[in-house]
């Protein structure tokens, strides 16, 4: 029968990547004589090799075999663990990752690097005739199935030792397996059978003379006896070839005419045939080719969930079912006396739903160590490249974060850590001169705060040079010489597009991603980034992220007959405007004085061109929101409830609309739009520019919105 295993390729790939991560982090922590660590590295390589072999990913198998051999020597103590070997192994892990990524993405990988590293490995192993063990195993497959078309008669003498059955072997099954090869005639020899009283039920006293008519080769017959070879006498003779016309595999005939007793040495031949597909089964499927990997493409979107999380989910569903049946019981014969019970039931339903929601969200949560674990290697490499000695401290690795957020926060974090190494930590001489330890420290810390997750990247370097940043911004024309800026404003300059210091062109940080991209990425996740820095003491970049992208805490507001949702995280405050704080400036631009700030007021009704109850700011309410460091006041008719809303993409169902980040469905079934605060700020800017150009009022008409939206 044929079994298609290609469905397991994605899980193999996923597991391999985990294995590689484990190898990498263990290699970085490897110390002499640490047997358990070296063992776990070996196991990871071993599993990858085994899996790759199964799917016919020969490149991975062959390469990993070399890695495994080196690790095996370390494990056995035949080789000391030298720093140089560790570097080679780290390189090898990179190569394995390249090879496996190439399988996942169905692309070719950089074979130069692979060849180079294999040669390095071979050199290290001092393999003169380096033939990876598995290289030829797969190619043998033709011999066994194609070989003997001729039917031969074999005489097999099988004399097992008495204790044969005690290792779980049973002659009966061996004979069954032989019978699969052809026609088998059994002749039992019971001469050694003792008297009934003397029989030990756990011993075997019988021997057999077998006659097999089969097309199988001697090696195939010997293979059946492979596991009992040391525990029996076995004589196999070829009596005659029934069909002499067919050609016979030369090797097999060479041996088969004379008697041979199986011993350990024959195993090598037997083994080649072991790997040679299924001899008797002509239907056996071809070895999984690269084609089967096609299915694996982009299919790594799976999550491995702890059983406890699933269990808690099942418990909650159980409770939900109970509540539901209680409610429907109530509904069957309802009268007013049961109102209290109904309320209690609904209360319970609310509780159940909330808990269920939290549990489901928790399934998407992964510990941030998934994003953190690439840093020890990164810092190790960077530290080597820059010659700075750096210690990396990871904290709060178990802090959980939504999988999607995790995937997208990786690159910005890498950028920030690179910056910390490159610009943050000073060279050892400078550190010593400043009275610090020559070894720099970078700390990555993650923790929960309110409904958010905070990730901090801290270095104990020289801090950000405010004057240098200011000068740079001046040079780039981002600021005027006359402006005085607060620390926060200066640090914010770092995130301006095109702002990069000359030093940044080194190959460490200069990866074509600027800090502005980092900020943009973080904002697209609904988060924000702040900088703190103290001269001589170090800098901290603090990233605030929502725990999940699927659910949002929102403030429902009413404008005319529409309900909109403002993300709670953006709201600074909501207020009833006071007449004396309203300033009308040119055109219909209105500013509201909020303490020391003048906040531009944006009436939502005019933004989206809808009817509203109040067109006058004094009778409306103002929701002051902040994004990109700018505050604006959104003019609404009324504030409704605050609630969590499930975000539905507008793109998927309609198209992107400027000023709207998504939609949700409210309790009454109606659709409400979620406002995109940064987008609205941008719209307001454009609008005021337009106003100034045309010196007249312009409203955004729906057609205009859509055409502009489509360009975004």
């Amino acid at each position, binding site marked *: *029968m*044929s*079994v298609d*295993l290609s469905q*397991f390729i994605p*899980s*193999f790939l996923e*597991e391999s990547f985990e294995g590689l991560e484990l190898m990498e982090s263990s290699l970085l922590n490897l110390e002499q004589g640490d047997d358990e660590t070296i*063992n*776990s590295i*070996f*196991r990871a390589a*071993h*599993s990858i*090799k*085994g*899996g*790759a*072999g*199964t799917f016919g990913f020969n490149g991975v*198998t062959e390469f990993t075999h070399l890695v495994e051999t080196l690790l095996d020597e370390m494990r056995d103590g035949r080789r000391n663990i030298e720093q140089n070997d560790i570097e080679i192994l780290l390189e090898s892990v990179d190569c394995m990752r390249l090879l496996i990524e190439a399988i996942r993405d169905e692309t070719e990988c950089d074979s130069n690097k692979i060849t180079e590293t294999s040669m390095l490995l071979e050199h290290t192993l001092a393999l003169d005739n380096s033939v990876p*063990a*598995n290289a030829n*195993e797969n190619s043998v497959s033709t011999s066994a199935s194609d070989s003997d078309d001729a039917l031969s008669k074999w005489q097999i003498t099988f004399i097992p030792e008495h204790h044969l*059955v*005690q*290792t*779980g*072997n*049973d002659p009966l*099954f*061996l004979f*069954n*397996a032989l019978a*699969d090869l052809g026609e088998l005639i059994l002749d039992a020899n019971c001469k050694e059978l003792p008297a009934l009283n003397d029989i030990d039920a*756990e011993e075997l006293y019988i021997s057999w003379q077998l006659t097999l008519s089969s097309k199988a080769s001697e090696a195939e017959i010997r293979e*059946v006896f*492979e*596991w009992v070879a*040391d525990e029996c006498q076995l004589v196999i003779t070829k009596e005659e070839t029934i069909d002499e016309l067919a050609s016979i595999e030369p090797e097999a005939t060479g041996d088969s005419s004379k008697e041979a007793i199986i011993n*350990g040495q024959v*195993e090598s031949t037997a*083994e080649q045939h*072991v*790997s040679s*597909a*299924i*001899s*008797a*089964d002509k239907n*056996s*499927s071809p*070895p999984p080719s690269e084609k089967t990997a096609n299915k694996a493409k982009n299919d790594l979107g799976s999550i491995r969930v702890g059983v406890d999380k699933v269990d808690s989910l099942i418990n909650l569903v159980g409770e939900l079912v109970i509540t539901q049946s209680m409610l429907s019981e109530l509904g069957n014969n309802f009268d007013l006396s049961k109102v209290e019970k109904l309320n209690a039931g609904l209360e319970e339903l609310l509780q159940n739903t909330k808990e269920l929601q939290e549990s489901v969200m928790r399934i998407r949560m992964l510990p941030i160590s998934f994003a953190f674990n690439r840093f020890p290697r990164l810092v190790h490499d960077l530290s080597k490249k820059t010659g700075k000695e750096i210690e990396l401290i990871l904290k709060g690795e178990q802090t959980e974060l939504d999988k999607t957020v995790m995937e997208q926060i990786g690159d910005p974090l890498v950028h920030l850590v690179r910056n910390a190494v490159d610009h943050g930590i000073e060279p050892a001489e400078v550190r010593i001169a400043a009275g610090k330890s020559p070894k720099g420290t970078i700390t990555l810390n993650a923790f929960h705060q309110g409904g958010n997750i905070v990730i901090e990247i801290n270095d104990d370097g020289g801090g950000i040079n405010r004057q240098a940043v200011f000068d740079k911004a001046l040079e780039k024309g981002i600021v005027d010489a006359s402006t005085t800026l607060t620390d926060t404003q200066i640090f914010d300059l770092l995130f301006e597009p095109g702002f990069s210091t000359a030093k940044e062109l080194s190959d460490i940080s200069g990866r074509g991603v600027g800090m502005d991209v980092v900020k943009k990425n973080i904002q697209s996740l609904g988060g924000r980034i702040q900088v703190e820095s103290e001269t001589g003491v170090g800098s901290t970049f603090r990233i605030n992220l929502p725990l999940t992208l699927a659910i949002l805490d929102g403030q429902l507001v009413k404008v005319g007959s529409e309900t909109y949702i403002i993300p709670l995280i953006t709201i600074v405050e909501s207020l009833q405007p006071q007449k004396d704080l309203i300033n009308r400036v040119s055109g219909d631009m209105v500013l509201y004085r909020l303490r020391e700030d003048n906040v531009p007021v944006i009436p939502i009704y005019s933004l989206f061109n809808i009817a509203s109850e109040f067109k006058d700011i004094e009778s409306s309410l103002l929701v002051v929101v902040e994004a990109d460091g700018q505050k604006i006041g959104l003019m609404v008719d009324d504030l409704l409830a605050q609630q969590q809303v499930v975000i539905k993409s507008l793109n998927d169902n309609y198209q992107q609309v400027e000023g709207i980040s998504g939609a949700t469905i409210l309790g009454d079934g109606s659709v409400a739009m979620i406002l995109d605060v940064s987008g609205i700020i941008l719209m307001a800017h454009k609008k005021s520019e337009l106003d100034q150009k045309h010196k007249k009022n312009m409203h955004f008409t729906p057609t205009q919105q859509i055409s502009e939206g489509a360009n975004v």
Partner: protein
Amino acid sequence: MTKVLVVDDSNSIRDMVSFTLKSAGYETAEAKDGQDGLNKAKSTAFDLVISDVNMPIMDGIELCQELRKLPNFKFTPILMLTTESSGDMKMRGKAAGATGWLVKPFNPEKLLATIKRVVR
């Protein structure tokens, strides 16, 4: 129904072996290391054990030795699933009481054909 205990620390290998066996009509249980396998074996009888050798916590050789001490497992076939095809590995397995070995890379057809030597 023939019951097989599959012991391997690699999820994908374990899943594949288990899947292959199930598709051929065997009943399977899975364990992620030797200790886990031993615990499962203590509460359930199996007709066949297929175990990886190199595993954390308890390796396949030790599992084999421990299983042979259980009255239920005195004659139960135990196959070691291994890429290490050296004679030394096989001898160690045999000495620990293993019935035989299956050499990785794991091939489903081969597996099914081979285990017929020890179970129905």
